[in-house]
């Protein structure tokens, strides 16, 4: 390397570190804040804590409400993923394998969900969910979420299914395997990469969703964690250390999940970029 190259590289890394500190400072202040007393947060918000007080974190971890919020979210997100994958893959399979009158039209119809934001129909959705009697149940969140995820799921699934080798179906067909059995026996097992990508994408969206649960869930028994966190914030307005500890405890699983599923999240991201 020449000297000019080395200088340039040092400048580059220095600039990257500068941006990284801007990115990380608020998050670190949050993690540290959960260890500080309120007096200490007031005087030094961004420094390391003087002494590591575990009691605020401990109080939240031993609060059953915290685990109930997380459990509700886990339940809702998982069921939304399962529903989207099964229903979406089944429909995409029909579009990929079977040609019938009106199939293009129905396909376009199911993709309409890509065209407009979820919030557009949130009020009629609220009225509908209430009239069906689903308010304050998991299904009030799961069903609309799965329905709105269907468009992207069907688009990605169909593209993937069409690329599976045709010979496979012909061979299975000669052996007397019908369309429905082929779907469960071969198409689904062969499609785990795309199922994982879409599954992770739907899970993250559902896990982080705020607007829909806010509108259809009123009882703290069924609150998802974002609602629980806002509730908690409301109760401890003047005690930032409590809220910061709570926020930290919800960030940590998200980061661990991201590190574990990084491949699929980035794939889902570029997959989502295809949707146009």
């Amino acid at each position, binding site marked *: 390397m020449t000297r000019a190259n080395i200088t340039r590289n040092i400048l580059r890394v220095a600039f*990257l570190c500068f941006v*990284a500190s801007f*990115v*990380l400072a*608020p*998050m670190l*202040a*949050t993690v540290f804040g959960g260890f500080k007393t309120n007096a200490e947060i007031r005087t030094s*918000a*961004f420094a390391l804590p003087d002494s590591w007080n575990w009691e605020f974190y401990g109080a939240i971890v031993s609060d059953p409400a915290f685990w109930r919020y997380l459990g509700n979210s886990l339940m809702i997100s998982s069921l939304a993923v399962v529903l989207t994958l099964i*229903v979406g893959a*089944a429909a995409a399979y*029909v579009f990929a*394998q*079977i*040609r019938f009158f009106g199939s293009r039209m129905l396909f376009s*119809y*199911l993709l*309409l*969900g890509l*065209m*407009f*934001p979820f*919030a557009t*129909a949130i*009020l*009629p959705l*609220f*009225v*509908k969910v209430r009239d069906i009697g689903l308010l304050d149940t998991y299904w009030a969140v799961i069903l609309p979420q799965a*329905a*709105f995820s*269907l*468009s992207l799921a069907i688009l990605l699934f169909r593209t993937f299914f069409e690329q599976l080798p*045709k010979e496979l179906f*012909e061979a299975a067909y000669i052996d007397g395997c019908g*369309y*429905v059995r082929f*779907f469960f026996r071969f198409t689904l097992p062969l499609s785990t990469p795309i199922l994982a990508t879409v599954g992770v994408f739907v899970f993250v969206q559902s*896990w*982080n969703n*705020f*607007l829909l649960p806010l*509108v259809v869930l009123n009882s703290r028994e069924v609150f998802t964690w974002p609602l629980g*966190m*806002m509730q908690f*914030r409301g109760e401890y307005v003047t005690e*930032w250390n409590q*809220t910061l500890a709570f*926020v930290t405890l*919800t*960030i940590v699983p*998200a*980061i661990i999940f*991201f590190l574990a599923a990084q491949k699929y999240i*980035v794939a889902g*991201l570029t997959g989502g*970029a*295809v949707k*146009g």
Partner: protein
Amino acid sequence: MAASAPSQVYSAPGRRLSLTERLRLGLNNGRISATLILLPPALILFTLFVMLPLGESFYYSFFNWNGYGVPTDFVGLQNYQRIADHSVFHVAVGNTVKIVAVSLFLQMPLALLLALLIYRKTPTNAFFRLVFFLPYILAEVAAGLIWSFVFDGNYGVSASLAQSLGTEPFFILADRDWAFVAVMTVIVWKYFGFHMMIYIAALQGVPEDLVEAARIEGAKRPQIVRYVLVPQIKPAIIVSAFFAIIGALQVFDLIIPLTNGGPSNQTHTIVTYLYTFGLTRLNIGFGSAVGVILFIVAITVAVFYQRFFMKRGQS
């Protein structure tokens, strides 16, 4: 095309099957029953929870209705008239435009610059990529709470600044003129990593030969960036701009913990406006009209974008 494959197995090539034969085959191999089993769940779910509510938005928007019983108080276009005359709605639309502008002219160039600095696959770059992507992983509500702490005049960055300067702390989120600047800072912080990742994926797909050829021709780094790399990843830039615009139309979760639309309704976006004036006051008709406006804007953007920027037909 896949469906024709099995029929070829049974019939000699070139021979066309009669309608009855095809029907019999269709029934025999379960094509029709497969369609009738596998397709309807998606159609029902999608219709019930996406298309029907969308249609109802249009219908309800012509009524003055609190959501109970049947809408009877038909008011024509009055809801739309009230929205058009409402100064808070003008603020909300203005804020959305501001978010788009900041995304296009600040966030995307920053993301592109960073992508150009770290797109090559080295351990250092992988580390920075991860760090810059972290804010995007966080839930909007969590990010909003974190920053409402940072901006809190009694505790966060402004408190520290005030202490070192010996001045009164500044409550930026409670300031009419500066609150939305703070909100936009958070938006850039939260989403630049997302755009950066799109560019990185695209930059890694640019053939190395092209860069090498330009270098042999004597092109310096800035010229390579300007004449080779950026033109090569133009589709990615177009897509990320689309996401920036569509994303700006949907901002909601971040605003609630940061400002909740205040102070004096200065930081509303279209969705927080819809929520605040439609749902919390149970003006279902009014809120539905806001939803319809949001729908029309989103569809217009999508159609316009496809028409002018995106090359169709590759799928």
